[in-house]
């Protein structure tokens, strides 16, 4: 009798350790998850990051503020516009520069477009993580149109570097408004297709609903932001709480759910696509006339002090914390990147679920690895 008990005890200790990554089809980059399994059930996850740690914070200490912008492009490459904007807003706030409305409106449109393309890519890769390969191509097909808009105006597709302290690098392209309107018209037709293929699909629902639930308390304690937190009911949209650029002039809803499972994290992003389109539609015809950039000093020096700027990227709140000693280089720059913080909750969410659910949960948190490592 005693012997039998002992065997069971040792069996429970026997963990099957699987290394997921750094090269794995569904970690979306070089994230490495050391997963302890018991059968198919996940017992523990240890994320190992740092495979593309580039030391952006250290690099920022030796370059000037306009030069920081091109590094922020490379953190969360799907929210490049918002990342750029955080630096510009911080510098403008510190120097108390008054920004004309035209710049604000264009920045808002660009941010929303960039959120839209990020969520499209989320939809695409989430579908692929769950095994629906076709979603990936439909998502990319539609995202390509936004990238074309970006390319026409900014010259870059993902790495846009469009904002600069005091305004924008160039004025919008003459075709910009027409193209955006065409895109919205096109995408409003295609979005129901997304729902038919994935959202309504019975397999998809079974795979996602009830998987990896995140309670409101946990979301707050783990510091989760963005659509992942809003699916749990945490109202954390910086665009609502601390409106920057032209967000105080537009009407949009903060998408909130209370369930917090994988399905609702997905739905939060899905609904945000609609909200983004509404926001763009409100602004695209009302871009005020004016200069596209304010004349700034050739060498930008922030007054001594500490500055903090939050922006809402597609994945959550990006905080930019800068300590300036009055030089043209910042003394210390800290990026509070949403992905890095969201990674912390992965173990908590996926424990006790199957290995296939781990993929779904990690997919629904929508990681961008370069943003974690910085």
């Amino acid at each position, binding site marked *: 009798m005693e012997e039998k008990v002992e065997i069971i005890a040792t069996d429970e200790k026997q963990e099957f350790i699987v290394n997921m990554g750094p090269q794995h089809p569904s970690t979306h980059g070089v994230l490495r998850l050391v997963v302890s399994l018991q059968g198919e059930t996940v017992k523990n996850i240890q994320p190992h990051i740092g495979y593309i740690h580039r030391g952006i914070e250290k690099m920022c200490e030796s370059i000037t503020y306009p030069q920081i912008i091109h590094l922020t492009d490379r953190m969360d490459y799907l929210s490049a516009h918002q990342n750029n904007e955080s630096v510009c807003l911080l510098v403008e706030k510190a120097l108390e520069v008054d920004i004309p409305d035209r710049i604000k409106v264009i920045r808002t449109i660009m941010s929303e477009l960039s959120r839209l393309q990020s969520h499209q890519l989320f939809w695409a890769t989430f579908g692929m993580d769950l095994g629906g390969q076709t979603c990936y191509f439909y998502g990319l097909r539609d995202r390509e149109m936004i990238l074309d808009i970006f390319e026409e105006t900014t010259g870059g597709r993902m790495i846009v570097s469009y904002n600069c302290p005091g305004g924008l690098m160039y004025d919008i392209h003459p075709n910009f408004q027409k193209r955006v309107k065409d895109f919205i018209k096109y995408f409003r037709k295609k979005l129901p297709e997304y729902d038919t293929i994935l959202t309504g699909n019975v397999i998809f629902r079974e795979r996602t609903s009830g998987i990896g639930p995140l309670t409101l308390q*946990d979301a707050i304690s783990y510091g989760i932001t963005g659509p992942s937190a809003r699916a749990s009911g945490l109202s954390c949209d910086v665009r609502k709480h601390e409106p920057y650029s032209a967000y105080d002039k537009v009407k949009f809803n903060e998408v909130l759910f209370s369930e917090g499972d994988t399905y609702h994290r997905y739905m939060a992003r899905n609904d945000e696509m609609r909200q983004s389109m509404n926001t763009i539609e409100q602004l695209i015809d009302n871009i005020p006339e004016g200069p596209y950039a304010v004349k700034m000093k050739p060498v930008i020096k922030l007054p001594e002090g500490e500055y903090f700027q*939050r922006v809402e990227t597609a994945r959550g709140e990006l*905080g930019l914390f800068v300590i300036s000693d009055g030089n043209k280089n910042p003394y*210390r720059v800290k990026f509070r990147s949403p992905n890095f913080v969201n990674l*912390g909750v992965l173990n908590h969410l996926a424990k006790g679920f199957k290995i296939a659910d781990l993929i779904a949960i990690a997919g629904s948190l929508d990681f961008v690895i370069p943003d974690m490592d910085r």
Partner: protein
Amino acid sequence: MDNKQLEDFIKSIDQDLEVRIGKQFTEVIVPPAKLYSLARQLRENEEAQFDFMFNLSGVDYGHDLGVVYHLRSTVHNHSIVLKTRTSDRENPQIDSLAGIWETANLHEREVYDLLGIRFTNHPDLRRLFLDSSWGFPLRKDYVDDINIVTK
């Protein structure tokens, strides 16, 4: 609570704490010894309820090493900044707040990795991005002849 009320609130907790009202946030300078108890009170006090830590950054002030905590309350929607610093560069030790806010866990690992500040009572203090062959690159006295080229 606005910045002024927050200042009074902090003073009511501990008279000796230095409170500054900055451009954006009320800043509290805390000695490392008092950090944990103050954080605990800020988290649990009904009036304050700073339940959301939205940033934690380690700073090398040249002589001192410090940590800056940005806290917010999702209930009352006010923010506060805690600052702590230690002058021990050889073995800097600061209490871990991972037991109060779960998100501090990863943040503190990052600070340990890049600045070498040891967080006592941290559940899992390992290096995060780099391996042990590196020094602490975010310190101002970090030297790397190969990778950091200055002209």
